[in-house]
């Protein structure tokens, strides 16, 4: 049966080729709304693709959502696929999505670490990092959430290439990170940035590398509360929220610390289900409920961004 947007199985995990094919299907389904953009190439040469949802305008303010920066957290890429379908279906039908897309572009990067993701399907399901070769070490890969130029190298990441939180030889050493950095800088008008991980049911905002409070901490905290209330209203899933360093631990070189320091006020990280039954080995049966509840929180953040221009 030819694959189509309607026959695609959203309640199952997919490999890299299937996700990239899905992105092409989506762009073909509604080219007036959706386009696929390649923003770079991974260390092993795979295209780094994002979806752009736009109803017109030039350099409109934009919202960025990414999933799968830690490749083994499969429920995040699977949720990204569901978000893409909701944006496609929602425009013109869902008042909130329509209003957001009438004012903002939305960029969605479903597979933010394609080399690592391909490796989880082919060789090692537990792989988390990139697949770059570390000179002088037999250990491979850098933690792409420790490689950003925000507190890079301070406590909260490792200098050991064999560690799962290895920061890399320098900030932005990973092409997967550099591609986003370059895109964000060249676009220059991104107003919200959400990076999605799993697991442990948390909604986090800057900072992670320092105990210094973010200038907008009060607003970010209030918005996080509103978002997690919306999330738990669907299935009762309980989330905690707060700054990275006060809620979990010191983590340096992190994505949203960098985006916040670029001036993107609404910078958030999600840690999706669960709290400790399956960890990131979440059964496929939980993909849809996880994505649905997360979508409610994402809409709260996107609506707030729409209603609070800065």
């Amino acid at each position, binding site marked *: 049966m030819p694959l189509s947007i309607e026959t695609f199985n959203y309640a*199952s995990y997919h490999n890299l080729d299937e996700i990239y094919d899905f992105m092409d299907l989506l762009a073909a389904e509604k080219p007036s709304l959706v386009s696929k953009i390649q923003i770079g190439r991974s260390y092993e040469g795979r295209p780094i693709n994002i979806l752009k949802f736009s109803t017109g305008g030039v350099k409109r303010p934009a919202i960025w959502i990414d999933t799968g920066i830690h490749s083994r957290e499969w429920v995040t890429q699977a949720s990204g696929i569901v978000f893409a379908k909701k944006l496609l279906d929602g425009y013109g039908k869902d008042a909130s999505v329509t209003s957001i897309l009438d004012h903002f572009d939305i960029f969605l990067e479903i597979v933010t670490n394609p080399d690592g993701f391909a490796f989880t399907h082919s060789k090692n*399901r537990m792989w988390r990092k990139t697949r770059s070769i570390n000179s002088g070490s037999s250990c491979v890969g850098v933690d792409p959430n420790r490689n950003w130029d925000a507190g890079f190298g301070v406590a909260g990441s490792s200098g050991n290439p064999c560690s799962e939180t290895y920061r890399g030889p320098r900030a932005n050493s990973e092409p997967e990170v550099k591609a986003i950095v370059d895109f964000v800088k060249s676009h220059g008008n991104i107003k919200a940035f959400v990076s999605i991980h799993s697991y442990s049911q948390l909604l986090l905002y800057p900072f992670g590398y320092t105990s210094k409070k973010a200038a907008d901490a009060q607003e970010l905290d209030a918005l996080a509360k509103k978002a997690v209330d919306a999330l738990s209203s669907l299935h009762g899933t309980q989330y905690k929220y707060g700054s990275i360093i006060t809620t979990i631990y010191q983590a340096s070189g992190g994505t949203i610390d960098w985006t916040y320091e670029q001036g993107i006020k609404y910078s958030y990280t999600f840690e999706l289900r669960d709290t400790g039954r399956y960890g990131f080995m979440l*059964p496929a049966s939980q993909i849809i409920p996880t994505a649905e509840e997360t979508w409610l929180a994402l809409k709260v953040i996107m609506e707030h961004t729409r209603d609070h221009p800065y």
Partner: protein
Amino acid sequence: TENFVGHQVLRISAADEAQVDKVKDLEELEDLQLDFWRAPVHPELPIDVRVPFASLQGVKVYLESHDIDYSIMIEDLQELVDEEQLHMSRRHF
């Protein structure tokens, strides 16, 4: 393809900072091949760690000898991986 037969994921509950440090000491022993899914940070937060079969006995003895509470979060990791693969392949039909 790496297989995880006999690997277990333990959920460790450190009672205090000293016990967190004891678990951190484990983290330094690279030949144990431990994979921390949730890192040892402070007592309020659970620690989740994947332990290969070869290291399992040693790690459990170490935890018990330091009175560090733990439970088995995932009994047989390979079973979950197999289920996932089966579900994905079934999707094709």
